């Protein structure tokens, strides 16, 4: 693999991501997981506080989501993995050890494809582990305040091989990881709330030379800080190497006030974690059947979904941009806690609480007589435009929108009337999901005139010509654009039921004679 060259240096980056598992309960205790809004020390139990006599018990939902993430990242799921205790004394660790998967992680050897560059970034391993509590040091009283809400929450540690070559690639990797984990409901991916944190290993070397000594930058909690930290670190290491000094192996932090990295500890100070297999949790067995079950339950990955939509609908004139906008409508629609489905792609069950925009679109397109390009335009421009909220299928069913599209496509309702009808359906509280759109169009007198009687339209046009003598004169004098004003008068008079093209033709004939 040829590497990117930055000012004559190769940059080698590896990322370890800690992603909080989106489960209702913690990894080994039945206490609820917490949000930042929870008051301190309200979501923990005796297991999280490491009371004597308590024992851990693996939450199967966390395992399920870990398996989903592992499959989404193309990893080999290990049928036998195990848990280890990592020991250190710190106030945010009540038991004195963190349970992690040091010796035998749950999944190994995967990859994540960078969407724009198309390059595969190898995932070395994924391990399940516990989050720590939070300790906040109060410098005034010189005491540490401890909040156990986060203690024992489930984390996925996702470790890449040193495959990333630039800060931009690192940023793209993290964004793609966020999207992927969100898509399978394993993590909400929010770095600003601490749901995802990254440690980055950085080294640089001259082409043809072996990898340089790496430094690890800990706990980066935004993509912006991560890019900045990597740039600072590259500059620092470059300066050292250019002045013929060596880069000592270190763990560093990033100070976003000074916008620079700083030394946390050197390799010599690396803690002795005394890893020991956890004697309570034993071997974690995952059967082939279990893996298959998780695979069957996987929601579509964004990449695969996008590709399928393009393959299916581009031929009908649906643009990639339109598909991206459509998929974009679903970004706020995360999978629920414990991987529970909110999205339902089953085309027959639109009565489901709510559908994604993609499912809605495909549901309307299921009728092969409809033009997908037309359908997507209706959804993106009319329906979504008039829904003053996020996209929802709860206001107008795909069946109703299909009915409306059919009425317009068959010229029984003009396009402006159709839009009016749609707006009416969204605002009139008497309209239900069972209301027939065709009946509504009749009731509201919105059936196009062209399809009722052409003579009616003729007479309205005659009245228009009579009512607008100045415009008729101008038109006769050769000012063609004025015809629109006359057509507009007719459209207004017919409340949009007239077909503008037909009106135009009639008006031109009337004026000329």
């Amino acid at each position, binding site marked *: 693999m040829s590497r990117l060259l930055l000012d004559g240096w190769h940059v080698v980056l590896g990322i370890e991501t800690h992603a909080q598992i989106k489960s209702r309960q913690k990894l080994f205790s039945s206490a609820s997981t917490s949000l930042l809004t929870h008051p301190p020390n309200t979501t923990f139990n005796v297991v999280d506080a490491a*009371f004597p006599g308590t*024992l851990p*018990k693996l939450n199967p939902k966390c395992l399920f989501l870990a398996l989903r993430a592992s499959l989404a990242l193309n990893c080999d799921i290990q049928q036998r993995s195990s848990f280890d205790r990592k020991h250190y004394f710190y*106030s945010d660790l009540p038991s004195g050890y963190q349970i992690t998967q040091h010796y035998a992680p749950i999944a190994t050897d995967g990859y994540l494809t960078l969407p724009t560059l198309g390059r595969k970034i190898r995932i070395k391993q994924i391990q399940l582990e516990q989050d720590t509590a939070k300790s906040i040091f109060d410098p005034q009283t010189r005491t540490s305040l401890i909040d156990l809400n986060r203690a024992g929450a489930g984390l996925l540690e996702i470790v890449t091989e040193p495959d990333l070559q630039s800060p931009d690639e690192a940023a793209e990797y993290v964004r793609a990881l966020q999207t992927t984990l969100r898509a399978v409901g394993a993590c909400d991916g929010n770095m600003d709330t601490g749901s995802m944190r990254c440690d980055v290993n950085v080294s640089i070397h001259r082409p043809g030379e072996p990898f340089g000594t790496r430094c690890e930058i800990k706990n980066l909690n935004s993509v912006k800080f991560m890019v900045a930290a990597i740039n600072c670190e590259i500059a620092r290491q470059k300066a050292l190497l250019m002045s013929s000094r060596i880069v000592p192996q270190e763990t560093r932090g990033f100070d976003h006030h000074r916008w620079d990295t700083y030394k946390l500890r050197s390799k010599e100070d690396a803690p002795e974690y*005394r890893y020991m297999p956890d004697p309570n949790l034993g071997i974690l067995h995952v059967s082939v059947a279990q893996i298959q079950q998780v695979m069957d339950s996987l929601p579509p990955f964004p990449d695969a979904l996008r590709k399928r939509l393009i393959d299916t609908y581009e031929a009908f004139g649906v643009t990639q941009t339109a598909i991206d906008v459509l998929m974009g409508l679903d970004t706020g629609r995360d999978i629920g806690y414990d991987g529970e489905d909110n999205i339902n792609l089953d085309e027959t069950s639109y009565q489901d609480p709510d559908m994604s925009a993609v499912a809605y679109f495909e549901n309307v397109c299921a009728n092969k007589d409809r033009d997908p390009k037309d359908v997507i335009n209706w959804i993106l421009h009319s329906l979504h435009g008039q829904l003053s909220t996020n996209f929802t299928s709860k206001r107008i069913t795909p069946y109703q929108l299909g009915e409306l599209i059919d009425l317009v496509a068959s010229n029984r309702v003009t396009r402006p009337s159709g839009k009016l009808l749609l707006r009416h359906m969204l605002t009139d509280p008497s309209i239900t999901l069972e209301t027939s759109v065709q009946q509504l169009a009749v009731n509201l007198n919105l059936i196009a005139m062209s399809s009722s009687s052409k003579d009616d339209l003729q007479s309205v046009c005659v009245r228009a010509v009579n009512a607008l003598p100045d415009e008729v004169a101008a038109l006769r004098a050769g000012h063609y654009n004025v015809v629109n004003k006359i057509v507009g008068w007719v459209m207004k008079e017919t409340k949009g039921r007239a077909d503008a093209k037909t009106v135009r033709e009639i008006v031109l004939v009337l004026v000329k004679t």
Partner: protein
Amino acid sequence: MNRGVTKQLWTGLRCLYTSSTRTISSSSNQAFLDKNSSINAFVCTNDAVEYSGDHFPLGNVIIGVKDNICTSKLPTTCSSAILQGFLPPFNATVVKLLEDAGAVMLGKTNCDEFGMGSLNVHSVHGSVVNPFQHPSSTLAWENRERRSAGGSSGGSAAVVAAKICDAAIGTDTGGSIRLPAAYCGVVGLKPSYGLLSRWGVVSYADSLDCVGIIAKDISTTKRVFDVLNVHDERDPTCTNRSIRREASHAVEIQLKSWSNLKERNLHGIKIGIPEEYFPFELSGSVVKNTRSTIVSLKSLGATIVPVSLKSTSFALSAYYVIASAEASSNLARYDGIQYGLHIKPPLGADLTKTSKIYAHTRSKGFGSEVQKRILLGTYSLTADSFDNYFLQALRVRRLVRDDFDRVFRMSNVRVSNQIANADGVDVLMHPSAIRTAPLLDGEEDSSGLEAYVQDVLTVPASLAGLPAISVPITNKEDDGWPVGISIVGQWGCDDMVMKIGEVIESLNSNL
């Protein structure tokens, strides 16, 4: 024993007996109190005892609970200063099961700190004194010879031997039930690992810790065992229902084939005598009594065969590495922050590291034996020694288990595809202790090597997770102090070891 506790015991007994059909005079009440102050077995008693009624499975059964098993009504100190006064917010599953079955919990029993020790002398509550006195002694009982009750469940064995309780529960990590039972002359069962829930049992070494039962006889042991022998969701090491069924089914078939057991006909039963369990240090009286019991069993028709368990000599080292490593990990939580003892660092103390702040509490709160094992365990887990000590110990542990699987007739239901040994033995039998209870204040100090030699007899069954029961046998030799014989069975054969134990029990009553 302090005055406060004595008073509590008094109230507890009063509550117990006012509603009981049993009657007891105030003079015998006083006798109980005197008894306890002489054996120092209860460290705290229940002053709100409720009598349940005979219709409960354990109605009227008076129970003591080792002080490392969580009780929400009584403090749980593990005999450690670091947990002095600690009141758990929940009951251990075994405590709940006992209460639901109508057992009357009288109080918490003394033990070695966190279960570490074999003489019950490493306790913040002081040593337990063995209640035994030879019938021929002319001394007042209070002035009897002060001998150890054994450990770590010394208090549990002593309250049963002193006839204060019908049964007591304790824990056995490397012999902590069987040894005190043998020293005190009562029955002690360490069940198969994973049968009895450990939720609420304060961990010493999770992979070895078992809740066990000490009782006056096997039928009481069995009654308590049957109540506690249920699956518990909250203990991840608790054996699942299907393996339980498989094991009990196999044992049932085997026991049915010995239908004449009741008539003390032992034909068809093969008892293995492991040669490695008769070390040089074994006292003469123990050897003689064990031999005479074996001879009696043979005369009843049992087939006695010598067997060899080659890995036994390595078992002790493996045990100490594993138990200490797990202990160093399990005891890391006692930092004085969430609960228990907290020692404020003195002015000017080094506060640069969290561990330096915790050190003050931990140095003060842990006794010397606990500190010794934490240090040993910490060392064996360091990156440099992990492979040579901990991993090596795990390998030895597997060899020990394989040794047992080879000699038993029953196959180990926890190991798949194991080929049963048709010529194998049903149970193994060996002395529970290398000697009778040692003197408490004597020269033979517990810190010496003797305590470790003793462990050779009990730790292999712990490493393999096998059921083992110590049954008292009559000591016709020298001092007449209690001697116990151990019966070890294949995993899940708890009923079998108890059945054979009953035969030995009947030998005693016949003599």
